[in-house]
C-alpha cells in the first residue's frame, strides 16, 4: 500500500539548538529557506550527524507545530527611520535577512532507546515510507495480518502519503470509537464519516470478521442517498485510487423510516417515486416500547412505585392471559389492549369496589394513572412510529449483513420518539452482539449531534447513559460509536474521552479557546480555525501528535443534492399509499384491485392488514391482504415474541475516563 522509498532528496533545513531553545527528546527547532514548501502540520525527518557524530544512525520524525519568521531588524523604529517615516518608501534595495524558523514535535525516534535529544542534523521532507514510520503505521501496515484502514492523504510539502488507522484501535478490541467535531457546514463531518465507512468496508480485515454500519439520520436528508452516486472530480477519483477505496456508492444500503401519522406514508425525504420503494417502514407496537418505558418517562416520573408497576406489567401482563380480578381476562399485546386493561381496572375499582379502594394489587390508582398516561401518550406523540394497535415492522435483527449500511431516518420524528428509537436500537444491537447472533461481528453506530444526545451538563437521560455505556464497554462487543458534534467541549467528557480516534474539522475560535485544546500550539489552532473543506486533523492512539489529512469527497449523493435530483413526492392519498406498499411486496398486484378492495373499509383495518402483510410477506400478497381484511385483524399471537430484558446500565459517576 505504500510506494517504494524515493531516491535521496536534498535537505530542506537544519536543526538548530540554543541555550534558550534547546533540542529535547520531544521537541526541536530547525530553519529553512524563506521560500519553502514546509508548513504547519508537515512531517519532517532528521538525519545525519550531530556535533561530534553524536547523532550517528539516529533518525527522528516530527510534525511541524509552530513557525516563526523574523529579520535582523533590531527594533521597528529602525524601519521607520530607514523609510523616513513614509510607508511608501519602505521598499529598500536590499531585502533584510530573514529566517523561517520552525518548531517540531517529535513523532518517533529510531532507535527508540536510549531516548535522547534530537541531534543537530539535516532536515528532510518525509516521503511515504517516512510517514508510515513516523506515525508508527508500519506495525499494522506491514504485519502478517494487516489492520490498516485509510483515513486520508497526508499532503504537505508537495508530497502525498496515505494515512492509515489501525482497525484494532478504531473498531476494537484494543480501543474503539471515533469522535469528530467541527463547525456546522464547514467541517464536513458527515462527509468524513461517509468516506471512512466506505474505507472500513473496503479494508476491514477478513480475520476480524463481518462489519456493518448503522446510521441515525437526524437532520434533513443527510444520509438518505448513500446508495446513489455523487459527483466526483478527477482529483477525488485519483485520491480514491491512491487510498485503494472504491469510488462507488455503498452497494448495500437499507433505509428505514417511520410512517407518518396517517400510517401509510413514509416520514422521510426519500419519497421520490424512483427511490421510495427501497425504504422500509419502521413501526413498533407496545411490546417493543414497554421495555424502554424509562426513555418515555422523565426523571421525575421514575419513582419506585411507577417503576414497580411497569415491571409488573412487563412480567405479569404483557403477552399472556391475565385476569384483572374483576372478572375479565386480558391478553395485552397492543396499546389498545393495554388501554382496555386500564379501563377495566379503573372501572372495576369504581364500580365493583364502590370507589372505596384506591389500590389494585398493591399499586395505587394514581401511580397506575400516571403510567397509563405516559405509555399511551407515546402512541399519540409518535404516531406512525408507534402503532396504537398493530404489529411492528422492525430492523432485521439476527440478520444483519456484512458491509451493509442501515440508515434509520428519524429526522422528522418527535424528540421523544428519537430517544426511543435510539435507545431500543442500540440496546438490541448490544444485546445481540453480546450473544454473537446479530449476523455481523462489529457494528459502527453513527450518531450526529452528540451535543444534543450526550451533553456535558444537563439531565442524565437514558440516551446519555446508553452513549456512555457504548463508549466505555462497546469495544469489547464490537459496538463502535462514531459520534459527531459541533462543540466537543460541550459533550460528556467520558463519551469524548473514550473515543480512541479523534477527528477535527474546521473549528470555531471560541471552541478552540476552551481547555480541551490547550495542548495545541497557537499555529495549529490557527490552522484548525481555517481548515478548508475536505481537510481534517486526526488523533489516533498510534500517532503521538495530531496529523492533518485530506480526504476525497464521499462517493455518495449528498443529502441536499439528493433532494434536488430526487425531489420528495407529496403525500399520496391513503388508497394510493396502500397500493404503493403492496405493489412493492408483489409487483403483480394492480392498483385498481387494491383500491376496489379497500373501498369503504375502515382505515385502521386496512392499516392492520397492511402491517400484517408486510410482516408475513406471503407469496400472494393480495390474496393474503384480502383474507385479512375479511375479519378484524387480530394481533398475531402465534409469532413467538422474544422478550429480553435490557441489562441495567452502570450508574453515571464522576470518575474521569
Amino acid at each position, binding site marked *: 500500500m505504500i510506494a517504494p522509498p524515493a531516491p535521496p532528496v536534498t535537505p530542506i533545513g537544519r536543526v538548530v539548538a540554543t*541555550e534558550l531553545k534547546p533540542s529535547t527528546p520531544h521537541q526541536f527547532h530547525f530553519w529553512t529557506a524563506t521560500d519553502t514548501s514546509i508548513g504547519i502540520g508537515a512531517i519532517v525527518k532528521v538525519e545525519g550527524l550531530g556535533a561530534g557524530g553524536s547523532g550517528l544512525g539516529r533518525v527522528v520524525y516530527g510534525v511541524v507545530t509552530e513557525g516563526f519568521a523574523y529579520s535582523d531588524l533590531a527594533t521597528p523604529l529602525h*524601519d521607520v527611520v530607514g*523609510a523616513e517615516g513614509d510607508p511608501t518608501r519602505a521598499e*529598500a*534595495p536590499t531585502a533584510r535577512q530573514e529566517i523561517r524558523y520552525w518548531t517540531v514535535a517529535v513523532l518517533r525516534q529510531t532507535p527508540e532507546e536510549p531516548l535522547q535529544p534530537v541531534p543537530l542534523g539535516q532536515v528532510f521532507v518525509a516521503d511515504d515510507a517516512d510517514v508510515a514510520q513516523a506515525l508508527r503505521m508500519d506495525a499494522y501496515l506491514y504485519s502478517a495480518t494487516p489492520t490498516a484502514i485509510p483515513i486520508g492523504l497526508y499532503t504537505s510539502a508537495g508530497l502525498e502519503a496515505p494515512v492509515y488507522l489501525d482497525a484494532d484501535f478504531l473498531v476494537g478490541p484494543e480501543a474503539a470509537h471515533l469522535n469528530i467535531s467541527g463547525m456546522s457546514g464547514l467541517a464536513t463531518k458527515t462527509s468524513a464519516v461517509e468516506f471512512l465507512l466506505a474505507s472500513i468496508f473496503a479494508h476491514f480485515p477478513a480475520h476480524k470478521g463481518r462489519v456493518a454500519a448503522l446510521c441515525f439520520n437526524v437532520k434533513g436528508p443527510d444520509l438518505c442517498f448513500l446508495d446513489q452516486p455523487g459527483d466526483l472530480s478527477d482529483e477525488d477519483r485519483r485520491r480514491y485510487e491512491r487510498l485503494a477505496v472504491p469510488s462507488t456508492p455503498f452497494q448495500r444500503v437499507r433505509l428505514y423510516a417511520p410512517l407518518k401519522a396517517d400510517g401509510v406514508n413514509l416520514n422521510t425525504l426519500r419519497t421520490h417515486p424512483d427511490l421510495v420503494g427501497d425504504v422500509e417502514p419502521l413501526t413498533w407496537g407496545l411490546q417493543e416500547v414497554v421495555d424502554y418505558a424509562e426513555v418515555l418517562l422523565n426523571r421525575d416520573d421514575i419513582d419506585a412505585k411507577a417503576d414497580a408497576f411497569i415491571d409488573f406489567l412487563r412480567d405479569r401482563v404483557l403477552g399472556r392471559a391475565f385476569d384483572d380480578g374483576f372478572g375479565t381476562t386480558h391478553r395485552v399485546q397492543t396499546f389498545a389492549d393495554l388501554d382496555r386493561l386500564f379501563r377495566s381496572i379503573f372501572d372495576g375499582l369504581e364500580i365493583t369496589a364502590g370507589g372505596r379502594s384506591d389500590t389494585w394489587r398493591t399499586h395505587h390508582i394514581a401511580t397506575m394513572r400516571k403510567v397509563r398516561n405516559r405509555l399511551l401518550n407515546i402512541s399519540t406523540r409518535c404516531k406512525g412510529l408507534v402503532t396504537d394497535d398493530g404489529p411492528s415492522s422492525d430492523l432485521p435483527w439476527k440478520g444483519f449483513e456484512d458491509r451493509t449500511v442501515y440508515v434509520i431516518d428519524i429526522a422528522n420524528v418527535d424528540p421523544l420518539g428519537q430517544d426511543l428509537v435510539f435507545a431500543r436500537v442500540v440496546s438490541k444491537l448490544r444485546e445481540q452482539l453480546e450473544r454473537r447472533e446479530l449476523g455481523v461481528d462489529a457494528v459502527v453506530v453513527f450518531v450526529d449531534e452528540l451535543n444534543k444526545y450526550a451533553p456535558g451538563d444537563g439531565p442524565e437521560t437514558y440516551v446519555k447513559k446508553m452513549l456512555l455505556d457504548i463508549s466505555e464497554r462497546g469495544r469489547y462487543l464490537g459496538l463502535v460509536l462514531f459520534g459527531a458534534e459541533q462543540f466537543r467541549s460541550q459533550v460528556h467528557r467520558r463519551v469524548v474521552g473514550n473515543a480512541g480516534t479523534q477527528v477535527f474539522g474546521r473549528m470555531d475560535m471560541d471552541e478552540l479557546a476552551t481547555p480541551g485544546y490547550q495542548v495545541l500550539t497557537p499555529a495549529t489552532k490557527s490552522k484548525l480555525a481555517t481548515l478548508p473543506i475536505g481537510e481534517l486533523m486526526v488523533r489516533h492512539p498510534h500517532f503521538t501528535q495530531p496529523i492533518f489529512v485530506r480526504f476525497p469527497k464521499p462517493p455518495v449523493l449528498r443529502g441536499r443534492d439528493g433532494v434536488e435530483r430526487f425531489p420528495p413526492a407529496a403525500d399520496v392519498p391513503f388508497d394510493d399509499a396502500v397500493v404503493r406498499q403492496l405493489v412493492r411486496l408483489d409487483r403483480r398486484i394492480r392498483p385498481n384491485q387494491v383500491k376496489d378492495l379497500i373501498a369503504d373499509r375502515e382505515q385502521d383495518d386496512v392499516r392492520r392488514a397492511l402491517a400484517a402483510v408486510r410482516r408475513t410477506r406471503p407469496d400472494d400478497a393480495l390474496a393474503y391482504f384480502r383474507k385479512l381484511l375479511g375479519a378484524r385483524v387480530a394481533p398475531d399471537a402465534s409469532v413467538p415474541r422474544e422478550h429480553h430484558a435490557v441489562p441495567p446500565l452502570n450508574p453515571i459517576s464522576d470518575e474521569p475516563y
Partner: protein
Amino acid sequence: MTWWQALIDAGAVPGRGGKADEPEGLERADLVEGAELQAHPIPPRANARVPAVVSFLNGIERWSVVAYDGVVQIVNAYIAAAVRRRDAQGVLRTTFERSRRFVVAPVERMTPALRQILEQSVTDIEPIDGELVGQPARYLEKVESTVRRARAHLERELAEACTAGLGAEEWLLIDGLLSRSPTVARHPRALGVIKSHGAQFLEGRGLERALTLPAGNRTSVFAVRGGHTRTEVYSWYLRLWPWEGNDLLYGLLRIEGRAHPDTVARASELSGWLWAERAPLATPATRWNRLLYPLQQVEEYLKALAPRDLQLQRASRLPRTGT
C-alpha cells in the same frame, strides 16, 4: 541654561561626539569638478537609479595571541572576504568567497624546539620582524598591520576576480579603498565606500564645506593622486545622515570611482543611488550611520563562518554565574 546652550542659542551647531578616526596624515588631492569645492544636492530618493544587480565586497580579520615562547607572542590569525551579489529581488547571494588561516610569528626568535613544532604543524606562517618582540605593545601593532595587510591583499584578489566577470550592467561596491588594485580602480562600474576619515584630502574652506556637508548633499569631485601602492581615483564626500546634533563625521562617506570624466558626470546620480542604500538601516552596528546594509550583511556572513576559536571574546573572562 548650560554654557553650551548659550553658544547654540548664539548660532553654534549642537553636537555630540567623542573620539574621531585615527589620523593618517594629509593626502594630496586636486579638484576636478568646478573651481572651488562646493556642496551639490543629490537627486531625491524617489528619483534614485539603483542598478538592478550589484555585488558587494567586504572582509573581516580576526587574530589573537595563542601562545608565548618566552616573550615572543605567537598569533593565530584568520582573514576572510566575500562578494555577495544582490539580485532583482534584493536578496544577497554569495558569489566569491575566500579565507585564510595563518600564524604570525617571528620564527627566527623562537626556541628551536618550539619553532620546529610550529613549522611542522602549520604550513601558513606570516613572518614578522622579530626586533619588536621586546616591546609587546609595538609588536602587537605590527601584528595588526600585518593581518590587515593580508586582508587587504585578499580583498584585492577577490575584487579583481569579481570585476573580471562583472556583468554588463552589474556594479561592484567595495567596503574600503578602490585604489589598491589598478584593475579595479580603472573599472567603470566599481566604487569604493570609505567610512574612516583618518586621511585628510582637503583643507581650508573646502575642508570646512566637506565636514559640514548637509545630509543629502555631496561635495565636488576631486582626484586622489596615486603612489606606488595606489592608483589614481576620483573621490567625493557624501552625507547620508544629518551631522547636526552628532559629530562632524556622522553619516559621512567618501566615495572612490575611476579617474575618468564620466565619474564626474555621474557623481550626483551615483550619490543618489548610495543615498537610497541608507535603508534598510545597518543596525545594530554602532557605525550604522556610515555602513551600508548590504556591506554589513557581507560582514555578518563572514562572521558566521569564522572559526569559533577566533570569535570575538566576551567582555569579561570571568565565568558566568547563571543562564
